[in-house]
């Protein structure tokens, strides 16, 4: 009796998998089509921009509200990021330029080099595409773009989504584990998503919820 029930569960699982495989061709991607390549860059600003975000950070058991100001120059891969307290105190001010990072100001608890590196990685992940061509990309028949970049350190960046359904960015380490995940929601204003949720899992675990307050290009 028990054996029969086990077989039925196995059969049900097999059928679900089988139906899944049968349906899959309907949403099959067209791989590495040159016409789809621009879609991999749709979520990144192409012109110089400045933006202000409301940021709700959840770290450990605590939470913090901040204002994030970002100014970027995509063609030069240059970016300045400033974190302010709600009263307008500058808590953190750093710039990425020419592959290097300069921290102008960092107050406790934002003064550790690991925090500065992590924050600028987050900002780069959200605003700049990887500087190399994707290794794989494609568009599913429902319009969903999927793009994969391989980093120099064997990390991977994956972007998937559409302007209608929103976008997801995943950064994986060389072991394939997700170390950062971001979900972007439209509408896009001056090339920037209105709402962003970012989870960082390694080395530090935290969540940022960002709401666009103002943006200029």
């Amino acid at each position, binding site marked *: 009796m028990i054996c029969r029930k086990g077989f039925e569960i196995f059969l049900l699982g097999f059928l679900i998998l089988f139906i899944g495989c049968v349906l899959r061709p309907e949403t099959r991607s067209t791989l590495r089509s040159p016409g789809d390549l621009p879609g991999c860059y749709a979520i990144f600003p192409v012109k110089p921009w*400045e933006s*202000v975000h*409301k940021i*709700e950070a959840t*770290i450990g058991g*605590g*939470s*913090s*509200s*901040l*204002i994030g*100001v970002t*100014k970027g120059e995509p063609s030069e891969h240059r970016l*300045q990021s*400033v974190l*302010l*307290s*709600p*009263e*307008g*105190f*500058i*808590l953190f001010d750093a710039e990425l330029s020419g592959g290097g990072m300069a921290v102008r100001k960092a*107050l*406790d*608890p934002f003064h550790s080099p690991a925090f500065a590196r992590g924050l600028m990685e987050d900002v780069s992940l959200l605003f700049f595409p990887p500087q190399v061509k994707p290794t794989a990309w494609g568009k599913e028949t429902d319009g969903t773009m999927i793009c994969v970049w391989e980093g120099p350190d064997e990390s991977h960046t994956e972007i998937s989504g559409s302007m209608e359904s929103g976008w997801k960015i995943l950064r994986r380490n060389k072991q394939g584990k997700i170390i950062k995940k971001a979900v972007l929601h439209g509408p896009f204003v001056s090339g920037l998503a209105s709402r962003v949720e970012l989870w960082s899992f390694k080395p530090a675990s935290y969540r940022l919820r960002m709401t666009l*307050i*103002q943006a*200029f290009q």
Partner: protein
Amino acid sequence: MKRFVFLSVFIAAAVFSAEMALAQDLTSLKEAFRNIRSVKAEFLQKRSLTILTKPLLSEGKLFLSTPDSLRWEYLSPLRSVMLRKGNKIQIYNFSDGFWKPEMAQAAESRRMVLLEISLWFQGRFDESKAFKHSYFPGPPEHVILVSGEGINKFINRIEIILSVRPGVIDRVEIEEPGGSRTSIEFKNVELNSSLSSEVFEKP
């Protein structure tokens, strides 16, 4: 020689007289603030950063009860409140429909600002530990606070512009090193209205 002595005496008398007048003005200024038991006001803050083309605008409310209770609340773009009652200072942010206590983020700077604001609204400019004050009868009547060692890394000077209405501050201008500045304009100022103590204890 006689002319020189006369000139010296004249200059000394003029300086003494000006200092006396200034001291008199500052005394009358403090007197105007001395009658204040509470302040309720709305404010508009314009934060100008060198990185931004347009200033960042924030709106909020202020509640003060002398001598040591203050509520400094932002309504937009972030809802956040700093509460001071005596030596106790609490900071909360509004998120997901709830007030959540702030992690210790620049707590010292924020504590200092709350203490300074409490002093300004009571005309106790000479009691600041962080700034040296100078009074200018105007018009507009204003007080300039120059930061001391340590604070000058963050703030160069603060200008407090007083209203013609005794004991009321119209505007505060804060200048930082590097060219960034903050302007806070106060409006709908109510003096000596009754304020519940809960205003300073709960977000």
